């Protein structure tokens, strides 16, 4: 069995972060959760630069990306990832408070893998996070070539 790749959670709001982490904890996913607090840090992780220059190589299993972020916002991060030959295969799930159609349209244009509006209702929210974690981190099979790269 290949080594479990981490989940990259990009979230600036500490309360949302805590709720999301709690939800992921509860669904007993074994993957590491790496937290980035803004878009710039997320890119550092993905490109092994800045504070993440020394991390173990390998792409995350999934990026859970908030839309509104300090420094570099979610759409910019998404665009950068999906335009990059080496990163475009990494699944990106947009997690947002917004039901704005323009964000949805823009995200899909940029190639987002899923777009989830965080439900206000707690149980729905938990369910959504857990489903996402289980689906993208456990069930989803990455393309074969990448499995080799990520798995050694």
């Amino acid at each position: 069995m290949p080594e479990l790749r981490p989940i990259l959670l990009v979230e600036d709001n500490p309360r949302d972060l805590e709720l999301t982490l709690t939800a992921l904890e509860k669904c007993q996913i074994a993957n590491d959760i790496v937290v980035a607090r803004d878009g710039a840090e997320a890119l550092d992780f993905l490109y092994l630069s800045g504070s993440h220059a020394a991390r173990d190589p390998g792409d995350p299993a999934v990026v859970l990306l908030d839309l509104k972020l300090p420094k570099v916002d979610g759409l910019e991060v998404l665009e950068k990832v999906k335009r990059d030959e080496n990163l475009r295969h990494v699944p990106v799930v947009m997690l947002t408070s917004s039901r704005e159609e323009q964000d949805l349209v823009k995200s899909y244009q940029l190639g987002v893998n899923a777009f989830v509006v965080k439900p206000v209702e707690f149980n729905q929210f938990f369910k959504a996070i857990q489903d996402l974690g289980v689906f993208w981190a456990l069930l989803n099979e990455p393309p074969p070539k990448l499995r080799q790269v990520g798995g050694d």
Partner: protein
Amino acid sequence: MSGSQSDLDFCAREPIHVPGAIQPHGSLLVLDPAGLDVLWASANFKAITGRTPLELFPSVEAALRAWRASGAHAYRARLQNPEVDMAAHAHQGRAIVEFERSAPFLPNALLSRLTGFAQQMTATEELTDGLSATARLIADLTGFDRALVYRFDTDWNGHVVAEAGNGTLPSYLDLRFPAADIPAQARNLYTLNRIRLIPDANYTPVPLTAFGEECDAGAIDMTFTQLRSVSPVHLEYMRNMGTLSSMSISVMVDGKLWGLLSCHSRNAHHVTSDIREACDFVVQSLAMRISADSRAETAALGVELARVHTKLLAAMAQADRWDEGLAGTPGALLELTRADGAAVLSQNSYLPVGEAPEEHQVRSLVARLSQQDAATDSYITDSIVSEVPHDGGFNDGTCGVLALRISEVEDSWLVWFRQEVVKTVTWGGDPHKVVRESGRIHPRKSFEAWREMVRGRSAPWHPAEIAAARDLRASIVEIVLKKAEQLARLAADLQKSNRELEAFSYSISHDLRAPFRHIVGFSQLLTEREKNLGERSRHYLQMISDSALAAGDLVDDLLTFSHLGRAALSADKVDMNKLVAEVRRGLAEETAGRTIVWQVDDLPAATGDATLLRQVWYNLIDNAVKYTRLREEAHIEISAVLTDQGILYRIADNGVGFDMAYKSKLFGVFQRLQRSEDFEGTGIGLALIRRIVERHGGSVDAIGTVDEGACFTFSLPALPEE
């Protein structure tokens, strides 16, 4: 009157300014450009001057030198030996010198008469008095049997407006003569050379003898000569009129030929050059008076029209639309051009005022004008029938049209109309009668008075009225432009505030939802974590969670509502049966365990935005389900009827209903008629329905009875015909 132009227009063929001959009462020399060589001389030279050209030349030379030194175009001198008057002018690079036997100097008595006349001309109140005085003085000075003041109308027909004479010749006062009597090239000559004298219609023309190498005397342009031999057609005309001598002096008003002073005698009659000069002075005085009168009239009219213009301007400024402002002030609009009717029209409006023709006739007129020439922005006529194709006239007596284009983009026009003025004109002979002899048109031989009814013509538009109309157009254009600018500014402001509103709602949707989520999440976590919480504490936590949830729903509904105002609508054919079925399936959870009797008719399809129409059905059906919750057996009926306006959809239930007294609040935002502990909701649902339906061009309505039920209806426009 249009037909009368035919007959004598043939005269216009005759090149009368190059006759190659002169009349015998004087003699003429044509000199080369340097003024040294004689090119031509009239054959009667010695008879008039008593010398041959070469013999006379030394006496002339000094005068010519003085002329050249003066640099003037024309020159006059009196030679002493022999006693002749000399008049020279330059034309087409030649010097033409005319000689007549000297007349005595004007006596002092004559000079004082002229001065007196000039004074009278400025003092006389009525122009008609001035015209009669002029005719009298001219007849007196020249000794002609009759002197006429002959005025041209805009079509160059002549009208005798004053007359003086000794009774030898018949009176022509008030008669009219067709334009062809004095053909265009003759009028041209009259404009350039004010005085013409024919002492004897039976004269024998004096040919010119060539001295130089050029032989064709016909090539000499005699436009400005006084002795020019006149056209044989004209001499025949004079003989027909029974007059052997004539003289005419042009009345030039502001550079245009206003009319003629026309003198005749039955027999040959000569007028010396000094008397002719005096007559010219008299006529010039008259011309100045006419000019002053017409200026004063135009000025007075201008002041009056400016007053009317101001009134119209005020009306336009007060109205929402300039055209309504004009049409709403019919008196002033008609007064501006002294019209009988007017119309303001654009692509989609027609506002007639007074006696205006029918809309389709006016439209076809402006359509024709627009076709003729894209640059055409005005059309002015007092006889539309004579200017447009056979069927282009109006059938309501309208003859005069003054049309101005206001805007090319909107194809808007302002048109004034004048009714036909039927008038009786007395002609000097039937102007329509064509006399032909051996293939050539002859001047009329009959001068009996001929009466004609002039039809198809309105009073002509005065230049001041046309100017006033153009001024009004300038004002309208300015007002229209100003309003357009205001609208553009308003639109820009609106766009800006719309953008701000969008940014505002965007920010709300992100930032306001999050805290509610956090409150719900953490209170739930707390509940789960503290297993030993008392009943009351659990209840409080539940209240906190419920409130935050409700607030979250409210934010969502508000955002949906505000999006509706700006989201683009699609217009597809929507299967309403399918929508209703989908909505009912979606409400399965709410209806589970309840007894609901549904009666759903077959619904006609609508045109619109399926997503939004689904929302309408969802809110209505959800309401019906919600408000029948307390019934043991709920009844919900959904149906539709086709009406003249479109399709009316209807949903009725036997729920709690509402009090019709509060109906006006039903469709307002945040209006609730039920206590929230009885029936949950944000109070936006019906407002949302109304907004969606109205954006589709329809309307909503409801009736209800407390505790018996409610019935909601919404209409949508009918499907377009396929």
